[in-house]
């Protein structure tokens, strides 16, 4: 038998704590595969954010610091500036990055911090029980938008990578989804590219990954995948928004 999908070397062989059908597990794997294929495990330092992935350090064989809510880009800045030859990445959810931590990510981007940002967008607050996130879709029901998100009252979904792609310090910005093997393959390339932006000293690299939250969406896992495809992808267009390695950028 030929092993074609071995467990990434950078991932610990333990069960994940995430809810059934949540795609954090896939995204963890993509990050670990990128770390493995770039050969950077022993010089990588991760920054865990507040949210469902707060315990990410239990799953990766790399050093980790856990940051206050939203502050992961600032913590990552502190690490990267004193250890410029190390690889530093943050792993943040939409509440963490797009709401309370929007100043930290914008200014890390403006400074062109040589860090990689893995941004997981499931359009809802998972850890705290399904409240509205900045990325919650218009009309979407959450515990704090019980009648559906009313744009007049609560604003509309924030498209983060579009915002960041316009900042000079950002070298790579992309959005992908992890809802099918083909999309996961594209997401893998994006995660690697976001790390390469740092390794090549070009600037901040960010990948937004559309993810699922079956429990708080109140959908079975397979339907959650379909819901993400049908509703999130139209609201959050996929693709590479910026890549400074490409000509014309």
């Amino acid at each position: 038998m030929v092993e074609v999908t071995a467990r990434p070397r950078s991932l610990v062989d333990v069960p994940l704590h995430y809810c059934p059908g949540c795609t954090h597990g896939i995204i963890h794997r993509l990050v670990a595969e990128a770390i493995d294929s770039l050969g950077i495990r022993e010089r990588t330092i991760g920054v865990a954010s507040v949210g469902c992935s707060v315990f990410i350090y239990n799953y990766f064989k790399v050093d980790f610091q856990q940051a206050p809510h939203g502050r992961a880009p600032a913590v990552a800045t502190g690490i990267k500036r004193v250890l410029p030859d190390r690889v530093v990445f943050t792993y943040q959810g939409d509440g963490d990055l797009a709401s309370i931590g929007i100043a930290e990510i914008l200014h890390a981007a403006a400074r062109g911090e040589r860090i990689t940002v893995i941004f997981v967008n499931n359009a809802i607050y998972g850890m705290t029980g399904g409240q509205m996130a900045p990325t919650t879709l218009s009309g979407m029901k959450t515990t704090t938008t019980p009648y559906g998100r009313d744009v007049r009252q609560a604003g509309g979904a924030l498209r983060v990578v579009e915002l960041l792609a316009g900042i000079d310090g950002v070298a790579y910005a992309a959005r992908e989804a992890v809802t099918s093997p083909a999309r996961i393959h594209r997401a893998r390339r994006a995660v690697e590219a976001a790390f390469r932006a740092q390794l090549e000293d070009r600037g901040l690299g960010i990948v937004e990954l559309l993810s699922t939250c079956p429990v708080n969406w109140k959908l079975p896992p397979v339907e959650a995948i379909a819901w993400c495809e049908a509703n999130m992808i139209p609201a959050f267009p996929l693709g590479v928004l910026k890549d400074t390695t490409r000509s014309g950028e």
Partner: protein
Amino acid sequence: MKRTLMKGNEALAEAAIRAGCRAYFGYPITPQNEVPEYMARHMPKAGGVFVQAESEIAAINMVHGASGAGVRAMATTSSPGFSLMTEGISYMIGSRLPCVVANVMRGGPGLGNIAPAQGDYFQVTRGLGHGDTHGIVLAPSTVQEIVDLMPVAFELAERYRLPVIVAADGILGQMMEPVTLPEPIAPPPPPDWATTGAVGTPRVISSIYLAPEELEQHVLSLMRTYQEIREREQRWEAYRADDAEVLVVAYGIAARVARSAVDRERAQGHAVGLIRPITLWPFPTSAFERSPRRWLVVELSAGQMVEDVRLALSGRAPVGLYGRVGGVVPSPVEVSEAIRSAVAGEVAWA
């Protein structure tokens, strides 16, 4: 020894670099702006890192990252900025990360003003952030003492793996005095817990303990450290205190004024002395074993340190308060008058 005339804020910055600090993160706020300005010029020359953060919140979290990566790291700010930093300071206490944070206090509450004050006493000694938080608080009263306390601050921070707060005030930051600077020392190597890249077993720095029993053990371990600090790190200066019948208690710039007032009263034949806490936390309770007839607390706040003095004395002697607020610094004459009122028993005693 070569003496240099330096502004307090600049002396603080230079002393930090000489003490091996190699990462400074700050945000402009009056009256401490000379610190980031000095660091911007001199930290790169020392091979260190300076970043002007977008906020005090970001600045303290950059300190978190740099400290976790094993480098001597510092932030400075003034009162409203210190409020913003307390989130990060609580996380650093929870994560057992050392750092030095200087709070060059100004008048409050709210935006208040930019005049010198000591109104953050409760905040630095009681509420360094949410949870059961304490950090060592050092209160210099001269520019030379700022210089002398910077290496102490970093050493204490690393010994106990806790933030150390340098509580100064606007006058100390802005005043110029001659100082003798120490020879620079090389920064210590990163400690073995630092996240420097996982060669071997990955290291994790975190303040989260989801199981109540685990968090209780973590906080109890912090409390053992707090107790050790209370027993070992009390610092104070006693001035003309041995035979004093009235003892004034004051720290920082208020102690400078009180000291002049004590000299004035001594010249008049009154047995007056001064206890000057150098550590505000741990409060130097050992300095309060003698019981003169009366105590008078002089502070640039609305009666904050007076509570620690009363706790230290446990009702053994009456304690009065002469507190000025709003950034008003009393003159030695005004403090002399307060002392005489105290002697005459004219202050409302607690």
